[in-house]
């Protein structure tokens, strides 16, 4: 535990270094980032050691806070979530130093880094906290520090709006978490997590209610549809390395919360699984559909996070269903798939957001339709982005495929071996995952090709250059991790044994190992095929390089049926690429298009505009909040701005309390 405490201390120290005006802002930023990287590195050591089979650790410090104890606990589950948090923070810190230099002015730099370090430290504390109140304090710190990062570019009205939506949504979610913890406290007598595990003995109906509260509360953070509305607003607004952190790991704290609560609640009811699977399917399919219709690269990635959270929820839901219906294989593989996707999504979504940051820095825009042709100008960024795209689509041989494979395997096991109540959701998941996979492939084919292929659509894109090595480095490391995780997947099975071993439901009954062992052989085949793929790919590339050596390579325009004046405007745009699919799903997306001017044989100036409104904000939340606002306006006479009236309220309250107390 000691290294983690040191790590936390160093992070807070880095936060102080970032704001104390002892050196130039740039120097302080660099210094604090270096300290943070060291802190992350130190913190990773105990996590890896716990995951490789060493016993968990606890730490309790004396603290005078009522209802609270400063109890930290590192078990395999915490360690599993801590690894991506610390690892991605490291990459984001390195990337952030040169990135923030351009993205914000010097006056903001200290505050940005301070919030960044506090964000990481609070996420680590959330994972370690073994007391409800400590958890909530750290949870709140996570929200606040990331809020400051979202509104960092505060001169921009859109960002301020995004910040408010984020803050409101997070706090509404937190209400449910507080309620859940308070009920657990009432039933178990303490806010300590060690006491919470007695909740397993409660009645199924009450446990179901607690689970529902957890899904509402933590689901808001995770970005389950329809509580996802803050996500596509807040993630694009934050600086890209922070978006990577928020999308890659911060929303996973919501998943962690749900899993942690599940560990307390003991044997699940089947409807819990159904609920998560439904949420997962809806979030997955709608998330990727919304992503498909976006032209803003960071918004696309943010919606895609909703989709991936959906996949994770499907895995966990299938696991729960397997557990409640007594099918051990489905349970183990479902949970393992969901959890592995947490790790994988952190890696490739972190990579993609960093990539989008690099592109944003060079082109100055998030609008994909103003980019193009960047692969030639930014080969490293392009190549790593491609790896990220392949992984996120769940294509072999990269890591995204592995976790989806686990979930597919669990779903097939459910369909083939399970009863009807297990086979039907299994079938839904297979169909849903396939649909999501296809749409994701289309979505990222669009993202990659519009940004990196073709010719630049505007001057800034044409002048783009490869970014600094300290920005390339983290992307390259993450890209190689996408491949490495998939190659070492067979050896990760032991880790899941330990992570699931924390779950009381899995520590009794048949062995987890035998269930996991089923996927060992297929995984080995996948790994071997991956090696084969890379060998063939490598040899093809080598052959090409060899053939082209000593030859003159020319660039020319694309063959255009003899048209004399091709222009960059003739290229596919993001909207036109996704148009067929967007039209197909228009009933869900509600995309509005405006076209004018193109008629006759010699059309003059024409224009085309497409816009996908956020239907959940427009149709669900806006009316609801407007209603609340009108209602609360009826009470606005209380807040009339007269000082005397306020003192009067206080006096009346105090007098009544005094008289009431003395009656």
């Amino acid at each position, binding site marked *: 535990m000691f290294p983690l405490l040191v790590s936390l201390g160093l992070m807070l120290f880095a936060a102080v270094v970032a704001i104390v005006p002892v050196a130039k802002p740039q120097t302080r930023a660099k210094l604090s980032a270096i300290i943070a990287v060291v802190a992350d590195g130190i913190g990773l050591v105990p996590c890896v050691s716990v995951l490789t089979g060493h016993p968990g650790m606890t730490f309790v410090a004396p603290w005078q806070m009522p209802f609270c104890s400063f109890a930290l606990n590192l078990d395999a589950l915490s360690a599993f979530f801590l690894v991506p948090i610390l690892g991605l923070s490291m990459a984001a810190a390195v990337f952030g130093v040169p990135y923030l230099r351009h993205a914000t002015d010097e006056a903001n730099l200290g505050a940005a880094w301070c919030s960044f370090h506090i964000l990481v430290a609070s996420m680590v504390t959330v994972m370690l906290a073994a007391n409800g109140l400590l958890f909530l304090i750290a949870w709140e710190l996570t929200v606040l520090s990331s809020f400051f990062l979202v509104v960092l570019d505060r001169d921009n009205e859109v960002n301020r709006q995004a910040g408010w939506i984020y803050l409101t949504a997070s706090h509404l979610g937190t209400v449910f978490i507080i309620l859940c913890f308070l009920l657990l406290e009432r039933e178990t007598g303490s806010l300590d997590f060690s006491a919470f595990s007695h909740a397993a003995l409660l009645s199924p109906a009450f446990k179901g209610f607690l689970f529902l509260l957890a899904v509402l509360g933590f689901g808001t953070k995770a970005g389950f549809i329809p509580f996802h509305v803050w996500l596509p607003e807040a993630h694009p607004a934050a600086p890209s390395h922070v978006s990577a952190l928020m999308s890659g790991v911060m929303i996973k704290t919501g998943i962690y919360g749900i899993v942690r609560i599940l560990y307390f609640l003991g044997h699940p009811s089947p409807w819990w699984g159904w609920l998560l699977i439904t949420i997962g399917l809806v979030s997955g399919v709608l998330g990727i559909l919304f992503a498909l219709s976006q032209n803003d690269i960071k918004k696309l990635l943010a919606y895609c996070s909703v989709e991936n959270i959906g996949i994770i929820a499907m895995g966990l839901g299938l696991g729960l269903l397997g557990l409640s219906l007594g099918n051990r294989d489905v349970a183990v593989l479902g949970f393992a798939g969901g959890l592995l996707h947490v790790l994988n999504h952190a890696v490739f979504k972190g990579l993609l957001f960093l990539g989008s940051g690099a592109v944003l820095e060079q082109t100055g825009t998030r609008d994909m339709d103003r980019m193009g042709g960047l692969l030639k100008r930014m080969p490293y960024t392009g190549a790593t982005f491609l790896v990220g795209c392949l992984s996120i689509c769940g294509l072999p041989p990269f890591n995204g495929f592995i976790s989806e494979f686990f979930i597919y395997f669990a779903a097939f096991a459910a369909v083939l071996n399970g009863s009807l109540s297990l086979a039907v959701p299994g079938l839904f998941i297979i169909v849903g995952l396939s649909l999501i996979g296809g749409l994701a492939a289309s979505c990222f084919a669009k993202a990659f090709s519009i940004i990196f292929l073709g010719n630049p659509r505007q001057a800034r894109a044409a002048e783009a250059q490869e970014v600094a090595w300290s920005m390339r480095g983290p992307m390259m490391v993450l890209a190689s991790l996408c491949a490495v995780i998939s190659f070492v997947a067979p050896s990760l099975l032991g880790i899941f044994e330990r992570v699931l071993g924390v779950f009381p439901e899995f520590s009794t009954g048949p062995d987890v190992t035998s269930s996991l062992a089923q996927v060992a052989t297929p995984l080995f085949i996948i790994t071997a095929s991956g090696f084969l793929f890379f060998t063939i790919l490598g040899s093809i590339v080598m052959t090409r390089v060899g053939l082209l050596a000593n030859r003159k390579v020319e660039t020319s325009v694309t063959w255009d049926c003899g048209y004399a004046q091709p222009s960059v405007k003739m290229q596919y745009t993001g909207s036109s690429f996704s148009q067929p699919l967007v039209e197909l799903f228009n009933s869900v997306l509600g995309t509005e298009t405006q076209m004018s001017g193109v008629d006759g044989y010699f059309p003059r100036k024409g224009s085309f505009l497409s816009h996908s409104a956020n239907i959940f904000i427009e149709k669900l939340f806006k009316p609801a909040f407007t209603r609340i606002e009108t209602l609360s306006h009826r009470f606005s006479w209380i807040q009339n701005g007269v000082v005397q009236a306020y003192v009067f309220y206080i006096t009346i309250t105090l007098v009544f309390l005094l008289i009431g107390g*003395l009656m």
Partner: protein
Amino acid sequence: MFDFLIVLVILINVRLLATGRIESLISWTAVQGVILGVFALYSRQAHLSVDVFIIGLGALLLKGLVFPAFLLHTTKIVVTSRETEPYVGPIGSLLIGMVALVVSLWLGTRLPIPGTDTSHLLVPGTLFSIFTGQFLIISRKMAISQAVGFLVMENGAFMIGVGTLYYAPFFVESGVLLDMFLAVLIMTVLITDMNRAFHHIDTHELSRLKG
């Protein structure tokens, strides 16, 4: 003697409720401050040492001279009208004051505080001072009356403080007086600033600041 001083304080409170002029408000507060200074010295005569004496004298000087001087000075600078411009007129104020006095006397019988054996009027007197101060704050528009109301409330608290404790550490007492001093200082500065911003010290103007 205790009862006599407390009755004096209560009567001054009634006078404060009845007055509509800022100057008289301030000067009657000054008289109340002097009486409380005497009260402090007298209540501790059995334990009179150097620091108790300094505190008593300090309270007398601050409450009786310094604070009123500050406030009068501010009034001279800023005030355009000499009225406190009450929401509640003198008759209404007096009626409410009577109700407050009755409630205070009743509460005094229900509120057993150890050390109040010096006078059974101590708790009602204190409560009445606090109610009066709060009423002045609530019912008057001119910002000076808010400062006076605060002083009257504090006077009440001071009374029960010295009436129940035979001895409080020097630092605590001097700290309380220093707080008061700063509070009055800040209030006068605020009032001056308010006058500069609005050309008036009607607190109603503050509602214009609402966003």
